[in-house]
């Protein structure tokens, strides 16, 4: 690991002003960053530790929604009574990710910024990677790509977004609150992540020095929810395909539905086309099938991951079936 400065600010203002210099990074739970620093993928010159900032609260909002501080640990959020009761899809997604040890450290803000598990990104000796070294090329496109993305890819990057939490947050239409050198702003999660295009190293809309302070999740009253994750092992493995469903069903008809997919996209993947197919329709297997076809219509598999197209369809169908049962 390289040498770096370490700062320990006590307020959000201080944190933001200390992190605006080039080469500085915020550190929260460290479950991604410490790992990548040990691999020399990340080499920050300054670490700004945000663990002492007052951002670890979960609060109910007057509109029935929930405000989640950026420093709330994944395990605390998963087991929070309100989350278990009203946002089951989020609790299920969190508990399907990583291991108990990692969930105890990983934070809400950190998870929103989780980096890909693409082996070429994580290994500095493995050859070119446009995400790690912009402009050098993508080793995965003609390499080992079984776990790579089939949606949102470009000729420059096919790395899969690894998070489970962010998929549930996408289906719940969370709003991300940010504080930075130019002030405060909020961004809907669906506008937060960028497609790789020809700049795969830019993964989201955060500007230098900007810090995620909290997330607001709108109320999801009278909805049925489910998160389904399919993977190589039953536990402690990243998704090959996953689906988060938040649906309002009335008299056997789908009044409204939001579907997001994980394990298949270069970002948490909102399936608007599938939602359009289902809205107002009876909750039947034929409509679930049509929705799944719509969700994967734009899929572009590579040499080793064509299986993900069918797997993701079946994942969406089963998640819809369980959620609307």
């Amino acid at each position, binding site marked *: 690991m390289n040498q*770096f400065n370490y700062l320990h600010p006590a307020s959000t203002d201080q944190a933001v002003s200390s992190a605006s210099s080039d080469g500085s990074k915020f550190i929260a739970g*460290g479950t991604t960053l*410490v790992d990548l620093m*040990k691999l020399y993928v990340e080499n920050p010159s300054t*670490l700004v530790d945000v663990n002492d900032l007052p951002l670890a609260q979960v609060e109910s909002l007057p509109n029935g929604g929930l405000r989640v501080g950026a420093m709330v640990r994944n395990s605390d959020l998963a087991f929070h009574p309100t989350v278990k009761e009203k946002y089951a899809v989020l609790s299920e997604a969190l508990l399907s990710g990583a*291991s*108990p*040890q990692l969930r105890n450290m990983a934070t809400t803000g950190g998870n929103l910024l989780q980096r890909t598990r693409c082996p070429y990104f994580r290994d500095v000796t493995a050859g070119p990677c446009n995400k790690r070294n912009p402009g050098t090329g993508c080793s995965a496109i003609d390499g080992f790509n079984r776990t790579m993305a089939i949606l949102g890819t470009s000729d420059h990057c096919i790395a899969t977004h690894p998070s489970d939490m962010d998929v549930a947050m996408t289906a719940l239409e969370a709003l991300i609150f940010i504080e930075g050198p130019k002030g405060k702003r909020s961004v809907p999660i669906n506008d937060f992540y960028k497609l790789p295009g020809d700049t795969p190293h830019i993964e989201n809309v955060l500007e230098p020095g900007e810090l995620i302070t909290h997330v607001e999740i709108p109320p999801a009253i009278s909805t049925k929810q489910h998160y389904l994750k399919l993977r190589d092992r039953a536990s402690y493995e990243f998704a090959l395909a996953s689906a988060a469903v938040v649906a309002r069903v009335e008299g056997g008809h789908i009044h409204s539905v939001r579907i997001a997919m994980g394990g298949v996209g270069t970002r948490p993947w909102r399936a608007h086309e599938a939602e359009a197919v289902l809205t107002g329709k009876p909750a039947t297997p034929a409509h679930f099938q049509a929705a799944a076809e719509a969700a994967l219509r734009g899929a572009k598999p590579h040499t080793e991951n064509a299986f993900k197209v069918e797997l993701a369809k079946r994942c969406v169908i089963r998640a819809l079936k369980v959620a609307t049962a």
Partner: protein
Amino acid sequence: MSDCRIQLTINGQQTSVEAPPMKRLLDVLREDLDLTGTKEGCGEGECGSCSVRMNGELVNSCMVPILQAHGAHIETVESLAIDAELHPLQKAFLECGGAQCGICTPGMLMAATHLIAHNPNPSLEQIREGLAGNLCRCTGFIKIFDSVITAAAMEGSRTHAR
């Protein structure tokens, strides 16, 4: 960056160490405090061999920069036995063949201790989930699950403490 002074409580004893801020809790335990019970497996948060409890939560000590442990209460595998009297979990691991090469064992014991502290009578499913962050390459896990079930039924599996 220069060393910093870190105060922490290890297995009930207050102590302080001087270490580089990003030195891993794992290395501080093993090298500075001679607590070599905690093992390094993968060093990247995958295998759980280095599991300890920090402020009552189970964490991978290879992923905790020592600065983040300032003021923390840490419990390692050395906290389990009281002098020569093994913890019920340790007895059960011996009895049921839950330990083979021994590298995963301290982490398994800490994860199992943590599990039983929260859930005195875990089901097999709950044991599988509770130990999901701990990999064993020898036993095939079944004997480890048997050990936890056996320990949970023993007197003092939750109360055994200094």
